[in-house]
């Protein structure tokens, strides 16, 4: 029983990370129908910014997190303006090629700058250690992840469903041309959401150094997870990816805990099965 709760807890924390990284991808796919395989590179950038700030300049962890967000968001804006925007109307093949090219470049740059080894991260003492609750050992850092992820999900839901900007985003996802005709500046909406999505990925990458690890192959290693969250969660909402990410997190951790021989096999099998049964995602929009 205790191990079941422990697995559930670890899985949820892991899922929160997946949610943070993937939610931006879900919005960009829904908004511009743009297949961005380089999304993981923004998460990696956030992770390296965080690690570099802490190691080389002694910045505290909690202060390095916003920096990771900002760095990834700025990189997102620049890339969007210089490169991505030329490809919105091109075929999916072109988009795949360009973004895979970017992934290769990101991996090479990361290897050149930081080496190919895993990056260590020293958590502040307040976030390290365990809490014991009803006989279950709760890792403090994972509690922190759950709190951060849940609060960001609440904020994002609020912005998307209660604010004028959120309404513009939803309208653009539903039908960009009609939204444009109604006076919504879809390009600007997209640029902003893209920046926030990349920033969240960067934040997720920084928060995930402890859980997901960080080395130059990061964008390739987790590409399937991010795509999976989008595939299962559908596009253009917060709840869909959140639900999907938590589900995946729990399934992955449970699979690795109870059936270690099978490992990642289960996850890929689930992905293929899901895509066969529900090609439009579990939480398909009406």
């Amino acid at each position: 029983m205790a191990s079941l709760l422990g697995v559930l807890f670890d899985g949820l924390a892991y899922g929160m990370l997946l949610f943070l990284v993937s939610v931006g991808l879900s919005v960009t796919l829904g908004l511009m129908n743009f297949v961005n395989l380089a999304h993981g590179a923004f998460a990696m950038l956030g992770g390296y910014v965080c690690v570099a700030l802490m190691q080389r300049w002694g910045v505290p962890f909690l202060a390095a997190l916003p920096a990771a967000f900002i760095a990834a968001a700025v990189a997102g804006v620049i890339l969007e303006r210089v490169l991505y925007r030329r490809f919105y109307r091109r075929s999916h093949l072109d988009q795949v090629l360009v973004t895979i090219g970017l992934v290769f470049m990101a991996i090479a740059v990361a290897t050149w700058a930081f080496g190919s080894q895993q990056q260590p991260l020293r958590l502040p003492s307040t976030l390290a250690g365990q809490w014991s609750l009803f006989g279950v050992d709760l890792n403090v850092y994972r509690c922190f992840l759950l709190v951060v992820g849940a609060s960001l999900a609440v904020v994002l839901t609020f912005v998307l469903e209660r604010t004028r900007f959120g309404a513009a985003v939803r309208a653009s996802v539903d039908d960009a041309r009609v939204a444009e005709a109604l006076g919504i500046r879809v390009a600007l909406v997209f640029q902003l959401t893209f920046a926030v999505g990349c920033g969240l990925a960067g934040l997720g990458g920084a928060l995930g150094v402890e859980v997901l690890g960080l080395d130059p192959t990061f964008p390739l290693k987790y590409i399937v997870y991010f795509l999976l969250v989008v595939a299962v969660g559908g596009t253009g909402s917060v709840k869909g990816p959140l639900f999907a990410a938590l589900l995946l997190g729990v399934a992955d951790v449970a699979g690795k805990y109870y059936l270690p021989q099978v490992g990642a096999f289960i996850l890929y099998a689930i992905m293929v099965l899901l895509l066969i049964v529900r090609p439009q995602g579990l939480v398909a929009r009406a």
Partner: protein
Amino acid sequence: MRVRGLWLEAAFWLVLAAGFVLWPSRLPLASQVLIAGLFALSYDLILGYAGILSLGHAAYFGVGAYSAGLLAAHGWGEPISGLIAAGLLAALAGLITSPLVVRGTDLTRLMITTGLGLLLFELANRLGAITGGVDGLQGVEVQPLFGALRFDIYGRTAYGYVLAVVFVLFLAARRLVRSPFGLSLRGIRGNPARMRAIGCRVDLHLAAVYTFSAACAGVAGALLTQTTQFVGLDVLSFGRSAELLVMLIVGGAGLLYGGFIGAAVFMIAHHYLSSLDPVYWQFWLGAGLVLIVLVGRDGILGLGHRVLGVRRRRAGPAP
């Protein structure tokens, strides 16, 4: 025009056949290039002609490689029957998975093929007792070709063998894409809904070409196993599928020869650049990919056609 094309094609294969004299010390590398070229040709059939975007084609390459390797490791070292068996097994894998792949949009196909590729990679990784896992499959012993020609260390037998097999499969693929069936594939790439409306059974056609493509990929994998007498887990890796896409795009998709040109450029560049520094290689690979897509994705062959002013054989817009 058609005759000139035929002369060019004959010259292409004659130069390859003259490889024994032209690059005698580079025959092993040349065999690798031909194998990669065949693999890229198999991918060209589904991407360039039928418009199926896949990032998991290494799955069939790997099935062929492991089939040939396992057969040879368990006593069936005769190369030609091993090659045929591996090709048939890969075709079977393609046939079984084709219903999952041919339906759906680009994105669904992309994810299903990626998923299938990773699934197979994990499977080979976990079944270490059979496949050798990360250490690779050891003990692959291939018997002499026709019972007489040994696979020597200079790679002469291997080169001739690979060239002959690749040529035969190339002829089959060439015949295929120039048949009415090939025309229907291009039609499907251009507009599946319209093809369905004029009575074409789109899913069946796509499944057929996917199966044939998987068989070619499997033979390519088996050739790699038989010429190197080893199977590593990387035959199934995602990286191999991604590199395959790069090779085809560099050479030019939908032109049959694009895969060979792309494979040659890619592997020779890889051979020399990565000996300088593997990191540089990866960076320039990525940068080159971005650049190719920016300037227009016709590849080297497309560029050559434009320079020579040759009428484009390709029908309709790119996928």
